[in-house]
C-alpha cells in the first residue's frame, strides 16, 4: 500500500487518532502486554512441582515485606543505582562536552572508543576488571608495595567495586546520549552567554547544563533504573562480598527451590514496575512544559566550538585517561590472558607460557562461527524493529498527539522488567503459542525488541523534543499532510539519532546474556551466551581468545559505521 496515500486522506484531521498511531499501539500492545500479564499472574500464584501455576496467593508480596532484610537490600540497591548513574553520567558528560563543544585534538575518536567498549561483552569486561582490581591483581600489588601491607588493600568485592564497574559499563552510553543532547541544542544561547562575558564554566553551569536538563534527566533515570534492577554485576561482585541488593536477594529466592520459583521474582518486578511508573510520571511532570526545551529551531543551529587554548591538551589528556580506563586496561588484560593457558598473577613465568593455542581453539570451533552469524542476524533484526517502532512513537509523544501517552507508556513499560524476568515471561508466552516459535532466532528478536524499546525511545524522544514546532507548522501551512511532515521534515532531522539508536541497540543485543540464555535453542545460540558458558565453566583463557576475536569484529563494524557516517554526512 502506498503509505503517503493514507496520509493524504487523513490530511487536516489533526484531532482524529491517526491510523498510524492505532496500528503502532496495536503492535506494541501485542508485544508488551503478554509478558506483563504473565508476570502479574506469576506474582499472585504458587508454583507447582511441574512449574505450572498453583493456587492464588499473596504470599509472594507479604514475604517481601516481612523479610527483615528487604529495607537494607532496598537501600543498597538505591546506593548502587545512584552511584553507578552518577559515575556514568559524570564521565559521559565530561566526554560529551569536550567532544561537542571544544577544540581538543583527537576528540572525534571518543565516539569510536565508546562503540568499541560497548561492544565488549559484559562477562569479559567484568572478568577483566576483577583480575585488575582483584586480590592478586596489579592494583593491589601496587597498593601493597606503596603501603607495605602484606594483605590486599582494595577490596573489589564491595559496594565501591560494584559501583566502579557498573558505572564504567554505562559510561559509553552516557557519552553517546549526552553528545546527542548537546549536538541538538541551539548553540546561540551559549554563544550569547559567552559574548555577554560569561566564562567557560559559567556558560556550562548556567546555560549548557540547564538546557540539557531533559536529556540529562532521562539519561539519569535510564541508567538509574537499569542499575537498580541489574543482576550480573551485583551477583558476580556483591555476591562474593555479601553486598546484597534487591535483585540478588530475589535471585537467591529463585534459586532456593528446584524447579525455580518465580513467584517472588514476579512480586519484586511488580513492585519495581510501580517504582518505575512513578519515576516516569515524575519525569513527565518535569517535562510537561516541553517548549522550554525546544532548542532545535529553523535557524542554523550548529553551536560554536570553544577555543580552549593550551587547555585543549589537558582536555585531550582527560579523554585519554577515560579511554585507558574504559578500553585499554580491560582489553589489555583480556589480550594478555588470551595468550596463556592459565592466569596466576603477572609474572615472568607467565611470559614463558605465551602461545596462540587459545586462538587456534577458537578459530577451529565451528560453533563459534555459527554463533557469530546468529548474533549478527539477531542484533540487526532487533535494532531495525526498535528503530521502526520508536521513531514514530517518539515524535507523536513529543507532539502530544492523541494516543501518545499510551504509546509512551507502552514503550517505557519494558524498563520495569529485569532482563531475566522478561526472559521468563517471554519463554512462557512463546511456549503457549499455537505455532512453533520457541527456541528460534525470531523469538529472540521479538523479546529483545521489547527489551530495548525504551532505549530507542530515549534516544528518539529527547531528539524529537528538541525539534521546534515551527518547522512542522511551516510544512503544514505549505499544505503537507501529517505523514509528509513526518517523512520529509521530522525524519531527516531525526535520522542521525535513528542511526545512532540502531547502532546502539545492535551493541546492546550483542552483549546481553539474560534473554538469550532462556530463549535461544540449540540452533540459535549467540556469542554472548557462549562466552557466558565459558565463564561459568571457568574456561577464562579460551573465553578471552574468543572475546578478542569478537571484539575485533565489533571494532570492524564500528569503524565501518564511523566511516559511513562521515561519507554520508550523517554525523553519528
Amino acid at each position, binding site marked *: 500500500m502506498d503509505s503517503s496515500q493514507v496520509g493524504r486522506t487523513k490530511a487536516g484531521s489533526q484531532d482524529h487518532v491517526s491510523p498510524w498511531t492505532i496500528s503502532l499501539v496495536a503492535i506494541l500492545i501485542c508485544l508488551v502486554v503478554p509478558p506483563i500479564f504473565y508476570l502479574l499472574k506469576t506474582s499472585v500464584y504458587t508454583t*507447582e*512441582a*511441574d*512449574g*505450572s501455576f498453583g493456587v492464588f496467593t499473596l504470599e509472594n508480596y507479604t514475604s517481601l515485606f516481612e523479610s527483615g*532484610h528487604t529495607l*537494607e537490600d532496598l537501600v543498597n540497591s538505591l546506593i548502587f543505582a545512584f552511584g553507578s548513574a552518577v559515575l556514568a553520567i559524570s564521565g559521559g558528560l565530561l566526554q560529551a562536552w569536550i567532544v561537542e563543544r571544544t577544540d581538543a585534538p583527537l576528540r572525534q575518536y571518543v565516539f569510536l572508543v565508546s562503540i568499541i567498549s560497548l561492544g565488549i561483552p559484559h562477562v569479559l569486561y567484568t572478568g577483566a576488571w576483577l*583480575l585488575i582490581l*582483584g*586480590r*592478586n591483581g596489579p592494583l593491589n600489588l601496587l597498593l601493597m608495595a606503596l603501603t607495605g601491607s602484606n594483605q590486599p588493600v582494595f577490596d573489589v*568485592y564491595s559496594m565501591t567495586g560494584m559501583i566502579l564497574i557498573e558505572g564504567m559499563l554505562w559510561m559509553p552510553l552516557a557519552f553517546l546520549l549526552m553528545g546527542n543532547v548537546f549536538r541538538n541544542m541551539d548553540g546561540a544561547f551559549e554563544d550569547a552567554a559567552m559574548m555577554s562575558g560569561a566564562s567557560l564554566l559559567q556558560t556550562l553551569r548556567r546555560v549548557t547544563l540547564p538546557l540539557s536538563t531533559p536529556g540529562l534527566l532521562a539519561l539519569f533515570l535510564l541508567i538509574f533504573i537499569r542499575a537498580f534492577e541489574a543482576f550480573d554485576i551485583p*551477583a*558476580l561482585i556483591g*555476591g*562474593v562480598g*555479601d553486598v*546484597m541488593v534487591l535483585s540478588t536477594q530475589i535471585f537467591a529466592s529463585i*534459586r*532456593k*527451590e*528446584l*524447579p*525455580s520459583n518465580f513467584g517472588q521474582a514476579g512480586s519484586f518486578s511488580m513492585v519495581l514496575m510501580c517504582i518505575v511508573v512513578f519515576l516516569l510520571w515524575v519525569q513527565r511532570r518535569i517535562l510537561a512544559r516541553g517548549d522550554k526545551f525546544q532548542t532545535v529551531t529553523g535557524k542554523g543551529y550548529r553551536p560554536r566550538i570553544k577555543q580552549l587554548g593550551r587547555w585543549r591538551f589537558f582536555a585531550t589528556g582527560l579523554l585519554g585517561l577515560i579511554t585507558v580506563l574504559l578500553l585499554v586496561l580491560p582489553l589489555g588484560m583480556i589480550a594478555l590472558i588470551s595468550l596463556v*593457558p*592459565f*592466569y*596466576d*598473577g603477572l609474572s615472568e613465568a607467565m611470559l614463558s*607460557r605465551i602461545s596462540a593455542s587459545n586462538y587456534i*581453539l577458537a578459530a577451529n*570451533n565451528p*560453533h563459534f562461527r555459527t554463533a557469530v552469524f546468529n548474533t549478527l542476524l539477531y542484533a540487526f533484526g532487533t535494532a531495525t524493529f526498535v528503530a521502526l517502532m520508536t521513531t514514530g512513537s517518539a515524535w507523536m509523544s513529543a507532539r502530544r498527539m492523541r494516543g501518545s501517552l499510551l504509546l509512551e507508556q507502552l514503550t517505557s513499560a519494558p524498563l520495569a522488567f529485569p532482563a531475566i524476568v522478561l526472559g521468563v515471561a517471554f*519463554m*512462557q508466552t512463546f*511456549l*503457549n503459542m*499455537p*505455532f*512453533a516459535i*520457541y*527456541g528460534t532466532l525470531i523469538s529472540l528478536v521479538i523479546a529483545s525488541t521489547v527489551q530495548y524499546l525504551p532505549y530507542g525511545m530515549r534516544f528518539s524522544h529527547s531528539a524529537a523534543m528538541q525539534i521546534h514546532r515551527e518547522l512542522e507548522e511551516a510544512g503544514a501551512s505549505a499544505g503537507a499532510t501529517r505523514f509528509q511532515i513526518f517523512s520529509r521534515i521530522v525524519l531527516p532531522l531525526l535520522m542521525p539519532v535513528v542511526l545512532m539508536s540502531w547502532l546502539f541497540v545492535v551493541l546492546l543485543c550483542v552483549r546481553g546474556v539474560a534473554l538469550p*540464555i*532462556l530463549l535461544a*535453542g*540449540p*540452533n540459535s*545460540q549467540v556469542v554472548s551466551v*557462549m562466552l557466558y*558458558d565459558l*565463564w*561459568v*565453566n*571457568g*574456561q*577464562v583463557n*579460551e573465553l578471552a581468545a574468543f572475546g578478542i576475536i569478537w571484539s575485533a569484529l565489533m571494532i570492524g563494524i564500528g569503524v565501518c559505521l564511523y566511516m559511513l557516517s562521515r561519507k554520508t554526512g550523517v554525523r553519528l
Partner: protein
Amino acid sequence: MRNIILAATLSISALVGLSNAQAVEVKDLNQLQGAERERILVEGARKEGKVVMYSAMIENQALRPLKEAFQKKYPFIEAEFWRADTRDLINKALAEARARNMVVDVVEGGGVSEALLRANALEPFKLPGSARLPAAMIDPKGFWVATRVSYFGMGYNTKLVPENEVPKTYQDLLDPKWKGRMAWTAEAETGSATMFISFIRGYMGEAKAEDYLRELGKQDIANITASPREVVNKVMAGEYAIALNVFLHHPIISAKQGAQVSSQPMDPILGNASVMVLAKGAPHPHAALLLMDYLISPEGQAVIQKADYFPADPTLEIEPSVARIVPSKNGMNMYFLSEEELFKSRAKSIDLQKKYFRRR
C-alpha cells in the same frame, strides 16, 4: 479470529494426540530385546531423523565429540545438543512439558532427575547396556541411568600452601591459619557450598554436622559466584590459598599445564553421579533410546572419559595421573550423594549455608 481459534484447536488436538501415542510407544519399546529392539529403534530413528539432548557437559570438551561420534554411528540422525547448568536444564524441560511442546528428548546432568520426576515429566526406560554398571548408577524405578561420576575435594595453591601444611582431613580445615584464605562456589548446584553441606550432614549426622559447620563458618570462606572450576582458577591466580569442594581432577589438569596447584582428596571422598533421563512425550523416542544406549556404551563412555569426566562404567581404565583421587584406587572411602538425597537435603542445606557462611 476464527483462524486463530482453528489453529489453536488443531495444534492442541495434534499435541494431545501426539503425546498419547508416544506414551504407549515408549512402554512398548521397553518390552523389546536383542536384535529386534535394535532393528525397531533404528527403523524408528530413521523416520524421526533427529534427537535433542540438553546436557550439563561442557560443549567443546564433551558435547561436540559426542555428537560427532554418535552421528558417525547413526548418520541418519541429526543430534542437537544444548548446554546449560542443572537449574536451567530443569526449568527449560519443565517449561516445554507444561506447554505440551516438547523439544527435548534426553536431559543429562547432575541433580536433574528428582525435580523432573516430581513434576511427572519423565518416562521410564530400559537400556540393555546398563547391566554393566554398578547398582548405584541405575534407578531401580527405571527413570534414570548414570552417565558419569564426579569426585569432590580440596584444591590448593602449591606456592601458598607448603607441602607439610596441606590439610589432610575435614577437621584440618578448621585450623585458624586458613581463615580468610579459602573459597568455594556459592551458586552452582554441583560442587557448591550447598552440596558440601548436604554431604557433611549425610556423613556426620545432623547434630555433629551443625557443630562442624558452625566452626567452619568462622573461617570466612569466600563465596564465589561462578563454577567450581572458576574457584580453582582463583586459587591458581593466588587470590585464595584453598579451594573447597571442587572437582578433584581440575587441579590435576591445570598442574599438567604448569600451574602451581594440586588437589588433596579427603576421606571419605564425596562422589556424585550425573544422570540422563527421558522426557515424557519426547518427540524422538527411538533416536533418544539409541543415544542413551550410546552414552553408556564402551565407545560413548570412552568419549566422556576423554573429555576429562569419570565414566559411570567402572571397568574403563583410569589414567594413572588421576588414579590418586579415585576412591576405589587410592584406598579411601567414598560417600555417594544420590540424586534423591541431594534433592531432599537441598532446602535445609541452603538455610544452613545462609546461617553460617553468609555475613548476614
